[in-house]
């Protein structure tokens, strides 16, 4: 029997920390030495911070090819789990190319939504989506955010806190799923009357696919894009009738949600979620279940799952017609 030594100096799984800052100036002063040290170590640094923060760090350190800016969340970003899934895709590419990544994230009040629940959802989702990735993620929050719940959430979602520049164990840390049981993913803003509404059971999934595909093709989607989005909705609809309730409902809006263009679908069932954030972890090849939602997340521009006393709800954005 061969015993392999799997210890290594390199990080092999997510290290998730939280730091706090008093002002924008204070944040830049914290970041410059931290990013500088990571670059000196040879690590690639991925920034998910406000553009002015990234500008200030770059200005202080000079141009470096290992300093990467992750994509901007955009005005339509209301779903922490969607942003976490997108970051996971970006980081998967970066780690494949460059090995372990140091990632710096910054709170941005424009994504707070009504009560700041976005951030707790995002950090809980990071805990799942990045769990098996060699990423050292430090999230910076203002000491005095507009919503107190943002700090309450941050103190639960991060296993480590940065105190005086050093990581220390966070005694208040909870698993992502326990956090979400306490602070559930927020429901998105209500949309108007849908263009299409279908009630379905397990034996009408083909009708759901046919009607949705026709609607998407008539709305200008190309065949491949329409087929892929139909697959995503089929997977969510299948879960709804398989694990949720015997009957479920699909709503379709073809003209976007007022912020983002493109078709929007919602699937509602009356069941309860066993996993509050399904489909975030990359599926294991030996595990036959759980792949549907993960694939749906890869296909959709955004996929937001939330639940309340009426059941489980999923909103999917197809993105602009192509």
């Amino acid at each position, binding site marked *: 029997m061969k015993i392999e030594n799997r210890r290594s100096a390199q990080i092999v799984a997510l290290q998730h920390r939280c730091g706090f800052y008093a002002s924008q100036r204070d944040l830049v002063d914290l970041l410059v030495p931290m990013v500088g040290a990571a670059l000196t170590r040879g690590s690639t640094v991925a920034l998910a911070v406000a553009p002015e923060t990234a500008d200030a760090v770059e200005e202080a350190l000079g141009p470096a090819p290992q300093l990467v800016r992750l994509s901007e969340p955009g005005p339509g970003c209301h779903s922490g789990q969607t942003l976490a899934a997108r970051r996971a895709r970006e980081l998967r590419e970066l780690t494949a190319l460059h090995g372990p990544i140091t990632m710096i994230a910054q709170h941005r009040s424009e994504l707070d939504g009504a009560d700041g629940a976005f951030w707790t959802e995002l950090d809980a989702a990071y805990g799942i989506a990045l769990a098996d990735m060699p990423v050292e993620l430090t999230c910076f929050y203002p000491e005095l955010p507009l919503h107190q719940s943002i700090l309450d959430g941050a103190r639960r979602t991060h296993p480590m806190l940065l105190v005086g520049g050093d990581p220390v164990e966070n005694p208040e840390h909870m698993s992502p799923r326990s956090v979400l049981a306490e602070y559930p993913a927020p429901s998105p803003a209500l949309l108007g009357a849908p263009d299409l509404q279908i009630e379905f059971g397990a034996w009408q999934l083909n009708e759901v696919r046919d009607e949705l595909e026709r609607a998407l093709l008539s709305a200008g989607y190309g065949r*491949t894009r329409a*087929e892929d989005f139909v697959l995503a909705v089929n997977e969510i609809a*299948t879960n709804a*009738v*398989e694990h949720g309730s015997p009957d479920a409902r699909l709503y379709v809006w073809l003209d976007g949600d007022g912020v983002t263009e493109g078709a929007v679908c919602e699937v509602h069932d009356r069941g309860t979620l066993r996993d509050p954030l399904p489909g975030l972890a990359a599926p294991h090849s030996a595990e*036959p279940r759980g*792949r549907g939602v993960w*694939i749906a997340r*890869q296909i959709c521009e955004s996929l937001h799952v939330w639940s309340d006393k009426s059941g489980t709800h999923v909103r999917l954005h197809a993105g602009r017609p192509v």
Partner: protein
Amino acid sequence: MTRTVEDMASFDSTVRHACAVAVSDEHLWELSSAFLSAGLAAGDQVKYFDDGTSDRVLERMFDDGVDIDASLASGQLEVVPPEATRAAILTPIDVMRGLVDELIEDALAEGYSGVRWTGQLSHALNRPAGMLDYELMLDAAVAGRPARVLCLYDRAHYPDDVIEDMRRGHRVEIETTTVYDDNLLRITSTGIGSARLAGEVDHSNRPQVRKLLLAELDRALRSPTGPHEIRLDVSSLRFIDVAGAVGLVHAAEEFPSSHKLVLDGVRPRVARVLDRCGAPFASQLMTIPRPDRPIPSTAGADE
């Protein structure tokens, strides 16, 4: 008397006029294509009397390996548009007899070995005289002549009592063996260790595919001369969901190492799902792609 479509396909078959009852849409396309494709191969002129179904029949013929565009271009295959089909159905019986004679003579004059036709003829339900006189006329018109007619009935277009009358009104009924058919997915056996899937695999019928694979593997393993490949013809499979695709990948991985699962004729839509489900990394799974068929060239003619 029951026969298979293959019986009717052979050139020296004496069967000229038969009926078949389709249990599902997929079965209907299968029967239509088998009959028409065999005619093309035999050198017959082939006509499909359309009434809104020709796109699906042509798609199935493409799946079955027919070069439809070439056959349509040469005129060996003709799709009779719905208006013409309906008008022909409503002509008086003696006029219709003349048309049938003309069809046969024209085909022979153009150098074809004969003529055959089928189609979606449910407009005949509107004939005041019913449909039996038409069947009797056909019997007489094609007897001993190089013409073959397949009358297709399906429950979506015909009431049950009419179908029973028509079965009694035909001396020959074509039968096909079906492994499974739920009107969404149709499975037919194509030999030891091989089968064909047509339609869609989703939550409602996924276990049937698994059952089929286990049964085919078992048959192949038990037969001393059994094949080392379990071959699924999926050229008519239009949709598969994620769990269905994962099921195929896993089934192949669980085969004994001596055996492989071959998916033949994978459409791009199905291929994209398989790719997302790890098919490229499954060493015991082989996929052979089917090119995507362009929009049917007769689509405009139906408008």
